[in-house]
């Protein structure tokens, strides 16, 4: 009885007792959710256009952020470094297409998935050789990102919002909007969707698969750069971010593998759920449940709605 009380009643009493704390937790969850969503967005872009499950998205985030910080440390002005990093991501996209995707076209999904594993290892090694393994500080000041916090007095307490988090949320929404317009309205966007529907049909109407792949990997690279800047501003830029990127997987499960808004909504659900779970139910189990709670949420969700919240295709079930 006592246990049931602790699981089902006590946390809610705590929530009601200190609504400012609840709000703060919700906000923290929302922000980490937005960051998960940004990574998930990169996954979705590539999955949508090439059917490749890109495991390397996490390391691309780290790599982009490292390039930016590394270039700035070499004395390049911040915005020039930003432009150069974008160029690096373009080169990476072309390289990936030439050396990895093109020879592997028409192979089973698992093979392409494994190839992105190889890419991950390659980029880890390359990044460490060029920039070194120690954590670095993101150049927030130079990029005119806001600092400090806003406090909001409410319910007799206060909730503090980090300005950088607000900026992250705004940038994420802008990016989603831009991507949505890009996919729906532009010529290239239509070509991307055509490729996603059927490689062969797209080829037969004259869409160049190679070009499309370079474009999506480049777009994913830019998303990775934005994620890297935001994430790097909250903590340091280090290779540990790469494992955190795996959190994007449950986000994708929730949102559906092919849906851009799904990635955002899924990210927020996972982020909020995780923080609430950790804060209110965590002490019951010993702390650190954050590391697996997201996957468990996804697992339970899978049993009821395998295609995700916004997934367009019913996945094969048996």
């Amino acid at each position, binding site marked *: 009885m006592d246990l049931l009380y602790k699981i089902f009643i006590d946390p809610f009493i705590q929530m009601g007792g200190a609504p400012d704390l609840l709000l703060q937790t919700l906000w923290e969850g929302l922000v980490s959710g937005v960051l998960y969503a940004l990574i998930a967005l990169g996954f979705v872009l590539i999955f949508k256009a090439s059917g490749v499950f890109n495991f390397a998205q996490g390391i691309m985030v780290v790599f982009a952020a490292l390039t930016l910080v590394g270039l700035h440390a070499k004395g390049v002005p911040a915005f020039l470094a930003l432009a150069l990093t974008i160029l690096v991501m373009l080169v990476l996209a072309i390289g990936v297409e030439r050396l990895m995707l093109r020879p592997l076209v028409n192979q089973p999904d698992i093979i392409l998935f494994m190839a992105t594993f190889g890419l991950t290892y390659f980029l880890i090694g390359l990044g460490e050789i060029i920039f070194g393994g120690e954590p670095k500080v993101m150049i927030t000041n130079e990029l005119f990102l806001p600092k400090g916090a806003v406090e909001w007095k409410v319910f007799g307490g206060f909730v503090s919002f980090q300005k950088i988090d607000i900026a992250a949320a705004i940038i994420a929404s802008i990016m989603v909007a831009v991507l949505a317009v890009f996919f729906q309205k532009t010529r290239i966007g239509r070509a991307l969707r055509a490729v996603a529907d059927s490689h062969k049909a797209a080829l037969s109407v004259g869409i160049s698969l190679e070009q499309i792949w370079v474009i999506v990997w480049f777009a994913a690279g830019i998303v990775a750069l934005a994620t890297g800047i935001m994430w790097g501003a909250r903590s340091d830029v280090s290779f540990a971010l790469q494992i955190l990127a795996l959190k994007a997987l449950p986000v994708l499960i929730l949102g559906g593998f092919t849906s851009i808004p799904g990635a955002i909504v899924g990210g927020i659900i996972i982020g909020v759920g995780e923080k609430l779970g950790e804060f209110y139910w965590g002490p019951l189990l010993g702390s*650190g449940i954050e590391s697996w709670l997201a*996957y468990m949420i*996804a697992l339970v969700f899978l049993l009821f709605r395998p295609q995700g919240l916004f997934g367009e295709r019913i996945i094969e079930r048996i």
Partner: protein
Amino acid sequence: MFYRETGQYKTDYAADMALFPIRQDRIGIMLILFVAFVVIPLTMSSFVLSAVMIPILVFSLASIGLNLLTGYTGLISLGTAGFMGVGAYATYKLTTWLPDVNIVVLILLSGFVSAAVGALFGLPSLRIKGFYLAVATLAAQFFLSWCFVRVPWLVNYNVSNAIEVPTRTIFDIPVTGPNASPVVRYLVVLTIVVAMTWAASNIVRGRIGRSWMAVRDMDIAAELIGIRLYRTKLLAFAISSFYCGVAGALMVFLWLGAAEADSFNINQSFIILFMVIIGGLGSLIGSFFGATFIWGLPIVLRAAPEFFGVAVKSATVEHIQFMVVGALIIFFLVVEPHGLARLWQIGKQKLRVWPFPY
């Protein structure tokens, strides 16, 4: 020329269905076993035995476990290291409860614990496949890692929060613990691995293995010919986890000698998946190739600069190692997506028809 089955007539079904139907193969396997059991322990230094041979065998066993699931049944799992950990921790608990029972028996028993956990986490496989299932097994991986860190009961509440392997003997020879000699440990590992590989090869040739492959190739067709998907998939998870669990127990008790939760983290799962893919999906011998390749490559890379007389910092070597492994994985996938096992098959076929091209 010498590798022909010409003139070897089979007169009954048993001979036709034998594990090695060709005489040359039988001679070959005898030779390999002779080298593995006699020549290697006699000639190799104890460092090579414990740093190269034992890990390769342990990882081969884990790869076989994953291969049964991914290669034969077509279910991707990213939770291999978690299941290995279950085996290791179960063995540790069993040695605490039953200090007098033979350690090899306990290691095999712990496989059953691992199998049960594996089957539990295999339950979602009934409704989902592919990457969705991979995420489900990722849940297993992270949950199990968390348990290893947070549940002190698993390590008997000791302060270091790690498994400390006790000394156990067979026929008064220490097999585990700090006093066990590498040769003894190697031979015990080798015996278990050979026995379990033999068992696996019979499982995959028999009714169970065939139903796995039917499910892998097309689940709906498999269901139509009367294979119960539910049981088949859960069995695949259970047997695969059994193998992984035993491999994990061997890893801690006969190789590392002590283990923390970190030995069973997500990277370990990825490395074993690499071994399976590089070795060849759906091939037992490929598992050995893959394990040897992935474990051996860094060792070779570390030795190479010294060999050429180039001084390179050890940190740089480690980073180059990452790059080379990554590049080689992509290279192999481009050149031969079916893995080293396919190269082996091609080689055998060429040898068979030599000197003619076909």
